[in-house]
């Protein structure tokens, strides 16, 4: 999207840190010590420096505010009771994390805590210097040792990052306070930090409500305090604030038609309008009443603006918009415009991460471990050589692989000597990961329906030296017939790709409602096949992992829920991933099974990895009892209506005849020889 260029971050590669985790990174001991000192002194200093920071804010561009100052500011805000400081800090929730690594390097980052577009270049320079250093000193040690110290600096980096993006659309006071609280919450370990984040986000709705109430109270007391504050921050912001108070008028349906007929509104108008909509929707209780319009009108306008501004089709824009709260949705769309970090996975069959990192650093590649949650991932910031053609790559020492695709394999956690099936495996990132975890024991069946993609799968399997892999090319739905009895099955289902829009922007326009229904139908078939392929008697396994790179509910929770209903012998279990948001248990009127909360969702704007969904099933032995057969009969109806049948009573006696008949028909359709109708005991029926 060319017109979005000015909104993009200066250089995606260096920004990309995170995945929510502390890059265990360049250790500059002296600096870190300084940081910790600062941290420990913070409470004292903050009081002192608070006034100064306010001054900074007014000047907006002054690059002298220090780390401590910033902390102080946020602290201050919180103390104020989240008084709706519409400061920039609150906005880029997702971007917060990106700054972490940067803050590790240099205080100069902090200098521009409140800097804007103009500062980006300088920023990059700093950055590259730091990376240069890091190539020399990178210590890829046990990856854990330094965490406690790191987190302090991370706090600061978060703050600094928030100021970075100039044209953001959703400044809300509540966000700012949430963030500051977040930073206060930060645990001593990154992982926990991650969780804390997600918890905090989940809790946001509640907090917002609280804040709204508070605001109302404050509004009554202090009147236009908000506007003043905004004005102090920034001229543009000031305008916005004023406009949203009185100047902005939502176009009526007729006006929108006319606008469309005239070839669509101009970009900056759309942008402004989105800001207004977000602002008003964010504080609907307070401001919505004044406008005299319906909330749904605002939402319609916002969705259509999003569609035109980011280049989605209306259907997809609405579908994605509904997944999130209003401000978060904007963050999500923004995050889709920015590429995700380049990550590689060490092939533990061939080398160790430390050795690989050293070898790549010698080639002029700038990298760091991804995070604590994986001990094989490396994140590449910049490279003087093509990362996909180094001798190390060709020798199979690593695999270019998105961070998100580590997750399903980690969830699957295959054990040596197991028989594992990867149902849709091309291009082989996950398959080779599984083979590496099996340490070339047992057997991995790598299946992919697409014959051309199978070639690259085979090449990768051989390049990475996986010797226990059988590559085959079936439609995944044939699977229990071809072969069953697997200890674990990974189903990374074909999906709409709404989680990887940053990688493949064509998704924005080429997906229609029909595509989604077809895909979810296919996914439902596949997941049943996957479950049926598992050996429930397996001593070590009996697990199915279902994942997609999509964020929509009907490809994820709905499919999981369907599987739970169709197969009474499976249950959801914890994925073993310590971060990620819980899956929806209810969505737009649909209720899913309680345990669906055990699934995990990953978002580009929160975790800085591709949008992803992971769920893990445990397949248990089928218990045969009368009830089950009846249930299956019911399920058909149940699934169709997605209704709740708990309280509807069935007359077993009256239904028996029909059930028998239905069972006969089913068996006949499957090709069994059916006993004659008069026979009341069909062979398959257990008492």
């Amino acid at each position, binding site marked *: 999207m060319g017109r979005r260029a000015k909104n993009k971050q200066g250089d995606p590669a260096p920004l990309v840190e995170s995945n929510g985790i502390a890059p265990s990174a360049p250790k500059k001991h002296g600096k870190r010590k300084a940081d910790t000192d600062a941290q420990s002194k913070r409470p004292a200093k903050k009081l002192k420096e608070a006034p100064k920071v306010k001054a900074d804010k007014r000047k907006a561009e002054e690059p002298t505010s220090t780390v401590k100052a910033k902390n102080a500011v946020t602290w201050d805000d919180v103390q104020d009771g989240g008084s709706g400081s519409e400061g920039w800090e609150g906005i880029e929730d997702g971007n917060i994390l990106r700054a972490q690594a940067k803050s590790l390097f240099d205080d100069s980052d902090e200098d521009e805590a409140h800097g804007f577009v103009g500062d980006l270049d300088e920023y990059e320079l700093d950055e590259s210097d730091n990376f240069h250093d890091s190539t020399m000193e990178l210590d890829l040690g046990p990856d854990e040792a330094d965490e406690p110290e790191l987190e302090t600096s991370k706090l600061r980096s978060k703050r600094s990052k928030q100021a970075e993006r100039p044209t953001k659309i959703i400044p809300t006071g509540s966000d700012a306070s949430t963030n500051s609280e977040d930073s206060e919450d930060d645990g001593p370990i990154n992982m926990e930090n991650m969780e804390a984040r997600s918890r905090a986000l989940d809790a946001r709705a509640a907090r917002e409500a609280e804040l709204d109430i508070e605001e109302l109270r404050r509004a009554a007391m202090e009147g236009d305090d908000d506007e003043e504050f905004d004005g102090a921050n920034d001229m543009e912001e000031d305008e916005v604030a004023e406009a949203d108070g009185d100047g902005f008028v939502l176009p009526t349906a007729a006006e929108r038609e006319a606008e469309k007929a005239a070839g669509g509104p101009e970009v900056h108008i759309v942008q402004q309008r989105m800001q207004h909509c977000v602002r008003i929707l964010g504080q609907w209780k307070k401001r919505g009443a004044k406008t005299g319009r319906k909330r749904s009108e605002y939402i319609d306008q916002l969705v259509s603006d999003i569609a035109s501004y980011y280049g989605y089709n209306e259907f997809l824009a609405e579908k994605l918009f509904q997944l999130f709260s209003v401000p978060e949705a904007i963050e999500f769309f923004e995050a889709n415009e920015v590429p995700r970090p380049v990550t590689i996975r060490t092939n533990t069959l061939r080398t160790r991460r430390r050795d690989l990192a050293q*070898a790549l650093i010698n080639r002029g590649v700038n990298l760091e471990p991804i995070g604590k949650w994986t001990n094989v991932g490396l994140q590449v910031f910049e490279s003087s050589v093509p990362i996909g*053609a180094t*001798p*190390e790559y*060709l*020798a*199979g*020492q690593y695999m270019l692989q998105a961070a998100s695709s580590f997750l399903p394999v980690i969830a699957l956690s295959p054990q040596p000597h197991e*028989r594992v099936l990867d149902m849709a495996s091309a291009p082989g990132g996950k398959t080779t990961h599984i083979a590496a975890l099996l340490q070339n024991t047992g*057997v991995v*069946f790598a299946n992919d329906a697409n014959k051309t993609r*199978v*070639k*690259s*799968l*085979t*090449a990768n*399997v*051989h*390049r990475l*030296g996986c*010797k*226990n*892999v*059988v*590559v*085959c*090319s*079936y439609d995944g739905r044939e699977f229990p017939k*071809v*072969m069953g009895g697997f200890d674990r099955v990974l189903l990374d289902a074909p999906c709409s790709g709404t989680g990887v829009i940053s990688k493949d922007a064509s998704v924005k326009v080429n997906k229609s409602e029909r595509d989604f229904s077809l895909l979810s139908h296919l996914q439902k078939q596949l997941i049943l096949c996957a479950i049926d392929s598992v050996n429930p008697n397996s001593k070590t396994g009996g697990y199915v992992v279902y994942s997609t790179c999509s964020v929509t509910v009907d490809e994820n929770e709905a499919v999981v829920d369907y599987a739970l209903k169709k197969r009474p012998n499976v249950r959801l279990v914890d994925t073993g991933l310590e971060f990620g948001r819980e899956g929806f248990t209810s969505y737009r009127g649909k209720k899913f099974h309680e345990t669906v909360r055990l699934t995990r969702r990953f978002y580009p704007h929160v975790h800085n990895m591709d949008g992803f969904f992971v769920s893990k099933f445990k397949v248990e032995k089928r218990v045969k009892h009368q009830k089950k057969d009846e249930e299956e009969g019911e399920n058909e109806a149940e699934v169709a209506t997605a209704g709740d049948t708990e309280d509807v009573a069935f007359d077993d006696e009256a239904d028996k005849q029909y059930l028998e008949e239905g069972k006969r028909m089913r068996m006949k359709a499957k090709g069994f020889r059916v006993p004659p109708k008069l026979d009341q005991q069909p062979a398959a029926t257990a008492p």
Partner: protein
Amino acid sequence: MRPLTEEESKAVFEKLANYIGKNLVHLIDRPDEPYCFRLHKDRVYYVSESSMRLGVSVARPSLISLGTCFGKFSKSGKFKLHVTSLDYLAQYAKYKVWIKPNGEMSFLYGNHVLKNHLGRITEDTPEHQGVVVYSMNDVPLGFGVTSRSTVDTRKLDPTAIIVFHQADVGEYLRDEDTLF
């Protein structure tokens, strides 16, 4: 998928013996798990017996590969080693050649190894002997055939070819379509 006939086995073994000599016995007689050679769509796979027995369930048109592909038979019945066999060749190689970092990329683009790229070479390598090519930090990059014996190489000029290129890991990128 089927076992190799005697002639086929002979062709494969002779090729392998050129690189790993008597160590070939270790491929056939493994202490950990029985392994076997199987022919599928003209390609020879070296696969553990347990994998093979499971792979039998996969229909012939759907089976793409199993275990490690060692190479393929041409229509005229000659056997050609593929770079995918490098793992095992490197493990059991008798004669090795190490090339300097400045020669790595040249070799990975499919060129022969020149004398000025030569880092080290196993002592007493005869001429026309199969050798495995390593980078200086012991990463196997491919294999080839020596043009001269170790002693004779001393007299050659720096641009002379020392090892004739047979296969290199760059083929994973260059020949992905034809390799499998």
